[in-house]
């Protein structure tokens, strides 16, 4: 298991983790996991990422000039990496234990300070076989519109499943069913998941 972050806030609907790599939270929509005290692992979809000052109240100031910009700024100001952190948020969509996968909220939130890891393609494949959790994602209260989150997630899962076109068609039909009364949201998701060069 490759640990990518540590949980710094947690509740029944999701958690916030500090990323081990600065500026590189896991991709939006990717499936991540965190251990549960009672056994098994909570599964969440990454719904937000940000890089902010470590101490509240310290704002970032412009550091660049004509010669020094982008990554060179960090060479010129070696202390910067110690004053900022990258965080990501995940909404819980299910949990797994001993090979069984459940697409409901886990009984407890994952514990504070525990590790977060990205799910392996096998785990993604196993979890995304059923699509009941789309409902949870569409209802999630996240900083970005839930249809954008769902589209990002379907794109990631499609890639993790090795460009599984049959699954993508099934996912599209499920989205159409869930959003049949909300044309605008439906179009947003469908245009967000259309494979490149197709529609």
């Amino acid at each position: 298991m490759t640990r990518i972050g540590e949980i710094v806030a947690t509740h029944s609907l999701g958690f916030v983790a500090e990323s081990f790599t600065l500026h590189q939270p896991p991709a939006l929509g990717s499936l991540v996991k965190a251990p549960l005290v009672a056994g098994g692992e909570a599964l969440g979809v990454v719904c937000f990422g940000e890089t902010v000052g470590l101490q509240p109240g310290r704002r970032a100031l412009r550091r660049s000039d004509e010669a020094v910009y982008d990554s060179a700024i960090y060479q010129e100001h070696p202390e910067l990496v110690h004053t900022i952190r990258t965080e990501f948020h995940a909404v819980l969509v299910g949990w797994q234990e001993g090979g069984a996968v459940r697409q409901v909220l886990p009984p407890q939130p994952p514990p504070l300070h525990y590790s977060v890891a990205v799910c392996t393609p096998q785990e993604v494949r196993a979890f995304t076989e059923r699509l009941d959790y789309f409902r949870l994602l569409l209802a999630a209260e996240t900083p970005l519109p839930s249809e954008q989150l769902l589209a990002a997630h379907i794109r990631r899962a499609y890639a993790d499943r090795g460009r599984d076109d049959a699954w993508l068609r099934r996912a599209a039909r499920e989205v159409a069913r869930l959003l049949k009364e909300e044309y605008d949201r439906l179009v947003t998701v469908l245009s967000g998941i259309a494979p490149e060069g197709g529609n």
Partner: protein
Amino acid sequence: MPLRLGSLGREIEEMASREVTLERRQRVERAREALRRLDPREVRTRLGDPRTVTTFVAALPLGAFAAAFPAPEAPRDFSVAAADGSSMGPDRHFPVRYYVLNTGYAVITYGSRPGAILDSRSRLYFRDEEVYLALQHRTLPVEGAILSAKMAVEELATLFEVASQAPRPVVALTDGVIILWGLQNVPEEVQGEFLGPFLETLGRFAQEGIPVANYISLPGAHDVVNALRVGLCPEAVVNCARCEFEAGRKDSACASLAGVPDRELFIYLREGERSDLFQSRAPILEKYKEHQVGFFYLNAGQEIARVEAPLWVLEDPRTLDLVHAAVVDQCRRGRGYPPALQEAHEQAAITTADRRVVEEMIEEAFARRRVVLPWSAKERSKRERGI
């Protein structure tokens, strides 16, 4: 709203109108003119004359009054170490006497292998010999000036420790800790208590060849202006105690410069340039032995800053150039203020929440031993704010 802003307003207006007057502008102009015109050799002779008596502290010009030296190029690879301290307590209203010193530090390495260490050291002092200073005939509580001196000693010791482990060349910066002004008005015995270890640490810096300097933003010192006042004195022997102008004639050449801060003199410096060197003659320095302190003023980009350092730093052109170059480079990187000092300060700061946590930890430790700590009734009433 108990603070009556209306009545403060009138006084604020008066304060502002007094600061911004033609008379004050003329004072500054006269001081600048004296800086250009006066011969530093004459001022040196006068300050060296044992008959000279002044009511103010005047700096000794070691070179020219109005010179300017451009910043040398900073080395390709170098480090800057900085330390800053803050304290919590002692609190008279808390039932046990203790205080916490938190010394923050930053070591930033620039060049081909950039890196940074930002951290702090926290210690709680509670033993009798820590919270009281036992002198020959009496005992003094460690607070106020004594606590500040203790913090300065800790700060300099931590600074030496982290600077000596940093990749060379390294410049060590302190925030207000070189001339221990606070010790000037405490009993000699107390001075000795803190000056001993303080000077010992300065000696370690010297031994290791690590330049240490104190960076002062918006300096309020007047000692160069005071040197000009000595130069302007019309008497053959400068003796403020016998000054005939003191009584009535306020427009004497000397009095007409009083109150002008040195920083107003050095606005002719261009960005990165420093003034010539001066030696501080603060009374406490009589006890500094081989660590006499000098200073220069510097255009730090957004203001005229003052950099103080032991003379062994300033009189060696290599360490002088290194300090000058490193400080200018720091100010360029930090938008006018050295980032190493800023980060050391961030590490040192004790927030209100931190304070509360420490108090709770202490209360809990006593509670586990079945002792409830009673706050003073006054403090409790302030916290409850019942109506």
